């Protein structure tokens, strides 16, 4: 495959990830890291570091758009993020001492339950809220 095609593919993937990130309120690492590892053959650590570099401008642009429309309290957001950053450093340090795979499985299961409850609740109340 030519370099141009690969670049276009990465660009298209970035575009989709950016759109999903903007609407879902996430960074996009959940999509980008597996993409880089599986499709581009980048190592796990390099993929994670690269993804963080992409997440930053993505969240800045999305926040700028939301702030200009008065849809976000930027101060609150950044306060939350500062706490998150502190917690993240602590989490990364703790992770070194704990069995990551077991944690991952427990949390994955928890996410699965939250998602199932959320979707089940929505399914049960379908038609009740005023949307098409």
């Amino acid at each position, binding site marked *: 495959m030519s370099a141009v095609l690969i670049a276009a593919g990465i660009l298209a993937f970035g575009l989709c990830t950016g759109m999903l990130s903007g609407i879902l309120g996430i960074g996009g690492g959940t999509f980008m890291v597996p993409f880089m590892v599986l499709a581009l053959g980048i190592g796990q650590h390099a993929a994670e570091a690269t993804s963080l570099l992409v997440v930053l401008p993505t969240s800045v642009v999305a926040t700028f758009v939301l702030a200009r429309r008065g849809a976000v309290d930027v101060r609150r957001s950044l306060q939350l*993020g500062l706490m998150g950053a502190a*917690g993240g450093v602590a989490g990364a340090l703790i992770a070194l001492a704990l069995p990551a795979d077991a944690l991952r499985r427990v949390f994955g299961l928890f996410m699965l339950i939250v998602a199932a409850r959320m979707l089940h609740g929505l399914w049960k109340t379908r038609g009740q809220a005023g949307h098409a």
Partner: protein
Amino acid sequence: MTDTFDAAAPLSHRPSAPRPATPLPKLVAIGLLGGLLSGLLGVGGGTVMVPLLVFWAGYAQRDAHATSLGAIIPISIVSAATLGSGAHIDVRAAVFLTLGAVVGARVGAKALVGADDRKLQWLFGCFLLLAAVLMLVQG
């Protein structure tokens, strides 16, 4: 803008400011917890913070998404500085993903402003399900 939003309330297509009533200690706890889990498990902060903001702090789905995006800014700066300092960066992937993502983020954020909460809940629920499966498969 004084009305309160909750997930079950009738839709409003106006942009809504996050509920000012959310107490700061709760926000601090969510930030710490979200960051902790994200650092511990390598998941994005938003995956953890959005459900916490909705189910614990009582944010409307849309406000939680918007708040999470802003919160990701300092988190990604600190994480990149910690994790990225020693790691190899794939420049080609970084450049082209960023070019695409920045354009996409504008589109996504604009869509978020006008989106209704139920549709956002469906979308986030599906995303969370996918993210959970990805995590379990990896583990």
